[in-house]
């Protein structure tokens, strides 16, 4: 697991406390009951706070799954996506 995954998992656990840690990597809007509009806002705020990024309106709408959020972060801050041992 990369540093990005560890931190992102923490954000998901904060936004969706009903998810087990093993469910988080495959979490999507459709399979997570608490991922409603309020949950999405909380997740966005936690990710922005954790990674020091600010998502634009055009991006927020596309953040509908763990892989999607991870991909956006990897694009915004490539260094965070590298395994810890590579850095």
């Amino acid at each position, binding site marked *: 697991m990369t540093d990005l995954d560890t931190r992102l998992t923490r*954000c998901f656990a904060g936004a969706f406390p009903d998810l087990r840690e093993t469910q988080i990597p495959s979490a999507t809007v459709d399979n997570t009951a608490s991922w409603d509009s309020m949950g999405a806002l909380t997740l966005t705020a936690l990710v922005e706070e*954790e990674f020091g990024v600010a998502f634009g309106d055009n991006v927020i709408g596309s953040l509908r799954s763990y892989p999607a959020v991870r991909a956006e972060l990897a694009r915004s801050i490539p260094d965070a996506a590298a395994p810890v041992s590579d850095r």
Partner: protein
Amino acid sequence: MKLAEALRIFREPADDANTFLVSLCTGFTPLHLQTFLGAHLRQALRNRSVDIGVGLFGDLAGSIDNAAAAPSRHALAVVLEWQDLDPRLGIRRLGGWSPHDLPDILKGCRKMLARLRAGLAEAAANKPIALTLPTLPLPMIGITPSWEESQIRLELDLLLDEFRAQIGELRLARLVSRQELDLRSPLDQRFDVQSELNAGYPYKNTHADVVGELLAHLLAPPLPKKGLITDLDNTLWSGILGEDGVDGIAWTLDRHAQIHGLYQQLLASLAATGVLIGIASKNEPANVQLALERPDMVLPQDRVFPVAAGWGAKSEAIREILRTWNVGPEAVVFVDDSPLELAEVKAAFPEIECLAFATASPSAVWQLLATLRDLFGKHAVSAEDALRTESLRNSAEFALAQGELGSPEDFLEGIEPVLEFSFRKDPPDPRALELLNKTNQFNLNGYRFTEADWQSYLSSPETFLQVISYRDKFGPLGKIAVATGRMNNGSLILDRWVMSCRAFSRRIEHCVLHKLFERFEAEEIRFDFVPTTKNNPLQQFLKEITGDDPQPMSRLTQTRFMERCPKLGHTFQEN
């Protein structure tokens, strides 16, 4: 506090089933503000569970009305923003910002403020309210550039000032300090335009954190400290008394020592609000006496008691002062310019808050004054606050006289004690809540009330409130004891009972029970007793009067009380 931390704190399981129920009234989606408020309340209430209900989007006045009418809710946190006064003052509606719209906007604001005031007045009749007035920047509705104040802004400020003054008069309403908000949350870092447009939530997280914390402070305020012990040389004044002499020490602008004068001025103000001020100084006692008698001292000599001057360790002087005051170290602040002295005292009394007086840095002293104001701040000053230092001096005389006047009965008769009982609970005496929350030693169970809990408890028709005042020939002690409880099938259940340590050794505790038996014609009193680390004096008394080790719901029959109660020569009055 970060949002992730706030979420964790707010969601942590609580030990207490007695949930604190708050209505958060906003015109916007409260989202993370709700989380921050909940987390700060959880911290302030030491892990008691907190439930925060929210109102309808875009209807602040309706939310306040609903919260006022909800009997189960303990308190209201109200957050007013510009768009709640008129939607055109927000950015989610396009009603017009033209100059010709402005008179109508002002008219709408005036009407809405009147409605909000009525709703808040109704709510504040029996529920505590914490309130912020607009915290966000006003949109660009004026015609002036940013550096020139606009007429509409001036008129809005006038309306808000009037509203602020009206709210300030409501007994249970508290306003968040604008100055503190401005210091903690800069204006340009409050408004999240994107979030407001997308989600109807206008706050950046840093701002929501500060607003939540300040609201929580108002609904669950920290207990103020009781006493301040100060050093003298290069602290209360500039200079070394032993070297510079009585005339060589200074605290004024012309002697480049104004910061010490300001410190004295704050101490005088604290003393006037009932804070105990003592002195611990390494100096010749006679010199200290002469210095304190200087007529230009800003801190009057009669506001200071006791003065512990000598050459022993500071911690020993402080031990003597604590004994005289009869307060615990956790309720005391010590101020000294010497890091060594501060460390020595801290090692002896880890619970004492030790603060440095940085003589060489006026800015640091300025910050110290602000810290002291926060540690000792209170909403209002009671008559007892003005009496406190004087009654401590009288207690010293009282202790001397006690040794001179023979038997306890002779002594009590000689001092002509008078007890005044009040059973009024609407409106409740604010001194009663203060005593319940600050008394440790003679305290039946150590339970504390928030203002909201207190209002809720008293609103029950079964409960009674007994407030006891005392005076004797040494002077008045003011309101020094409180008992609350209810009757249940001939038994009087005593829920809370506290007495100030200043009132010990006068058999007031016996008088309180005597009066309760008499007034309620109770067959027995049952005590909701819980041992604490500090309530040994109460435990001793219960053991003496009941004849048994105190237990939860210990019992005392009227017959047993009359057998064991010593002679009481007090005069009883009731108002």
